[in-house]
């Protein structure tokens, strides 16, 4: 008797039992990871916010917050700014997505590329680049004053309008990506059917297209909103501090006044609560109206008349020109020596690059190390999570899904503060705290960027039909083996693209890491902050330039692998 045969019933049972134990412990590890590095820090944040100096429960700090007209105004303004940015990015993002999906025009394929690029924008780099070009002594104002007799420089940047400008031109690609993804999944037959019964133009858009792209739009809008809501660096550069994120940051990074420090914790907690509320609202809306199919449809693109073609190219060209302003500004400042009050630098130098590459190479090596480790965490936990979500009926699956989405909505500053509070005590049975170890940077990056790997894997798992795996299992392959031999070869592109997004966005992250970095562990994004805060804007620009180049390379790789179908990563 062939006891080792795959068809042996006892053996199959053994297999299944082993798998159940393996599966169970696998799920437990995932839950443990999320419990320790997501739930616990948030719990600690709320615990600290809701206890007084004596350690007993008290909501006095929250009362203080809401009684202070300044903080109420800051909260209100933050929400308004978020909504404003959603409005402006919607306008740009939807228009561009539509043009890219539905029409064929000269330069379409290169536009697909270029319109996504602005998302590669490390914190500070965007706003600094804008200030170099559009500031009071920026290129534009200098030219206007020197050649067109302008007396007083125009204030483009210093004020809420500056923040709106920076956020809009940075974040509209998120909107484009989300809509692009939704539009590509709309079955053209639905629109054809509408047209057949006489629904045309705007009416067809309102009745058919709009509802179908709503889920994609809502996710995009939520991301744009949270991103703007959580950005503390941009407002600080343009001299605005009556917003929630800068207040949280400023209050945390000062230790003299314990009252203010406490307020920083409270503001972070409030930001988390608000983010969760917006997330729930968005989810409700989406789940109510999700009619989209899962597969990408083949869409016929319409050709444009020469005149319209010119208009479209002009429109996209103008948007891109504005969106690329920061790259120009950063580039000029990174190479330009003592650039002041002239339209362009008068002499150029490699001095700043020498300082940041040769004298302090640790920024670059640390960045690659921590971003790679973080991506490792993303793969280790993200791929199994995606598989559980797509293929199993594991207990608590919905909770897992919600947690992963929650991460996307959490403001980075708040996460940083939460970690700061949660991991400052020594690890049990040792004499070092997690906070003093570099690995904390990799962990926080891994957690914050986990959703992108999960989404990328999940999206490609949905496209692989279950029957392939069932076929493999029916001939006796275990779940692991099936995954290795059948599923993985089919979805590796999705995993790679998702994890590369995790990688790119880890490179750019500074909001959480800034508060957690110990000396010697600074990554590029934190280095930009350090140089900027110590007054070396040129060195900050040089580091920013390097980060942009690394980001752009990763981005090109993603695009080569996955084409433009990666919008789902952000959903």
């Amino acid at each position: 008797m062939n006891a080792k045969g795959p068809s042996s019933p006892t053996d199959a049972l053994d297999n299944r039992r082993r798998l159940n134990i393996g599966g169970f412990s696998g799920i437990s590890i995932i839950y443990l990871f999320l419990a320790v590095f997501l739930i616990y820090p948030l719990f600690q944040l709320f615990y600290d916010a809701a206890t007084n100096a004596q350690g007993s429960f008290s909501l006095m700090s929250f009362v203080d917050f809401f009684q202070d007209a300044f903080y109420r105004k800051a909260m209100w303004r933050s929400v308004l700014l978020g909504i404003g940015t959603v409005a402006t990015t919607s306008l740009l993002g939807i228009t561009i997505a539509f043009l890219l999906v539905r029409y064929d025009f000269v330069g379409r394929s290169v536009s697909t590329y270029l319109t996504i690029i602005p998302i590669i924008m490390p914190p500070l780099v965007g706003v600094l680049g804008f200030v170099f070009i559009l500031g009071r002594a920026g290129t534009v104002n200098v030219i206007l004053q020197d050649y067109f007799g302008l007396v007083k420089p125009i204030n483009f940047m210093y004020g809420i309008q500056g923040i709106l400008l920076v956020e809009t031109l940075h974040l509209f690609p998120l909107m484009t990506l989300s809509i692009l993804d939704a539009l590509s999944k709309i079955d053209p037959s639905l629109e054809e059917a509408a047209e057949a019964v006489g629904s045309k133009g705007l009416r067809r858009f309102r009745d058919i297209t709009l509802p179908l792209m709503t889920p994609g739009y809502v996710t995009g809008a939520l991301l744009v909103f949270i991103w703007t809501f959580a950005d503390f660096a941009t407002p600080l550069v343009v001299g605005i501090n009556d917003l929630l994120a800068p207040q949280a940051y400023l209050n945390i990074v000062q230790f003299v006044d314990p009252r203010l420090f406490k307020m920083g914790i409270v503001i972070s907690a409030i930001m988390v609560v608000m983010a969760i509320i917006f997330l729930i609202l968005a989810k409700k809306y989406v789940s109510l109206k999700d009619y989209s199919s899962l597969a990408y449809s083949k869409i016929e693109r319409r050709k444009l008349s020469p005149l319209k073609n010119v208009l479209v190219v002009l429109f996209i060209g103008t948007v891109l020109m504005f969106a690329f302003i920061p790259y120009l500004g950063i580039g000029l400042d990174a190479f330009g020596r003592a650039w002041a009050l002239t339209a362009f630098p008068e002499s150029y130098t490699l001095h700043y690059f020498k300082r940041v590459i040769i004298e302090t190479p640790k920024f670059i090596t640390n960045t690659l190390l921590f971003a790679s480790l973080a991506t490792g965490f993303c793969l280790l936990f993200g791929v199994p999570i995606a598989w559980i979500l797509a293929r199993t009926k594991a207990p608590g699956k919905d909770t897992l899904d919600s947690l992963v989405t929650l991460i996307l909505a959490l403001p980075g500053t708040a996460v940083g503060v939460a970690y700061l509070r949660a991991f400052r005590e020594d690890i049990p049975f040792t004499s070092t705290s997690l906070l003093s170890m570099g690995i904390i940077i990799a962990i926080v990056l891994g957690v914050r960027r986990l959703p992108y790997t999960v989404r990328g894997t999940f999206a490609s798992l949905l496209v692989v039909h279950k029957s392939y795996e069932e076929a493999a299992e029916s001939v006796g392959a275990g779940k692991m083996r099936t995954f290795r031999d059948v599923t993985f070869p089919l979805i590796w592109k999705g995993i790679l693209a998702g994890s590369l997004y995790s990688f790119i966005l880890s490179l750019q992250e500074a909001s959480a890491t800034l508060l957690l970095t110990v000396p010697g562990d600074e990554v590029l994004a934190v280095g930009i902050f350090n140089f900027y805060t110590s007054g070396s804007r040129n060195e900050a620009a040089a580091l920013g330039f390097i980060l942009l180049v690394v980001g752009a390379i990763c981005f090109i790789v993603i695009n080569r692998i996955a084409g433009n179908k990666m919008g789902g990563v952000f959903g």
Partner: protein
Amino acid sequence: MKRVLALFGFIFLISIALGLTPLAAAPIEDQLVIQTPVTKFITDAAAKAFTEYAKKQWGMEIKVSGLYAGTPVCYGKIVEWKGKPQADIFWGGESALFDKLAEQGLLEKLDVSKAAWDAIPATIGTPVPLPLKDPNRFWVGTTLEPYGLIYQPKLLARLGVPPIKDWDDLLNPKLKGQVTQCTPDRSSSSHASYEIALQLHGWDKGWDWLKKLAVNTGTFATRSRDVPSLVSKGEYAAGFAVPSYMAFEERLAGYDVKFVYPSNAFVTNEPMAILKGAPHPKAALAFIEFLMTGEGQRVFMERGLFPITPKYKVAGAPGSTAEMAVEFTSGVRSFYDIKVGNIYKDDVAQKRYSEVNDYFRKNILEKHKDLIK
């Protein structure tokens, strides 16, 4: 007798040999971590000079690293470390904070030589003397650093404003919207300079002066380091409450800016202390002793700061950085050569610290839009 002589000779040779060979155990640790709000511009230079010194002195490589943060953050971190610090030295900020740390038992007594200690005068300035070292030896000043004014000559010329010489020149109506300053609740240099105005003119008149300054202020920068950057870039014509080295850093980077030490301006001594429980205490002490030498003081003199001891003066070959610094500050070589006016009383300032910040927030920052109408 011969044998005794031979023995002595032998002992003599052995001692010479021992004297020449470096001791097996290095005299100081090979690492040093500095927690500081002082810019990398100064700290990097000090670290480099010290590394070279250690190499020459003990033939060893020492790795000096800096932990950079604003003064309050540094202070907070040191308190949070609870005597188990991740750094050896705290450098920079207000000496009042050092006193607070010493009270909490978080600083180590400085065991430097009497000669080096005595070379630093106890105070500077009249009528109110400013302490330059702690009588209890928990901290010592490292350099003299005025918080003054910075301006952009090219932009001033364009606006038709003569070069700035003293505080009141900032109130020139032609400078409306052209001044930048950091808020006093976010910057210790700004807060100290606000106190100078309040203690010079008295509470009410002081605030009147500060409100006039606010009228000319285009933007309140959130961080003090932004002020000189904004001025050197030409975003604004003049900056208020800027430490001299920050201004000189911009000058060294090639920007065409000038620094003014206005009357009675705040002068800090960038105190330095060794943290209790420091992982590298010997290196820390060696670093402090090094900074007190002429070689150490040179680090400051070449970077827009002034020697803490009367013995040294900023000077160098024509065209040297030191001479550039002298020209930059309109000829000051030592603070012991000029009249150092000081009216700043720290106890007054400490007592009303939050009151000043609150008053500023309510009556200037929140009303800025109305003030500039």
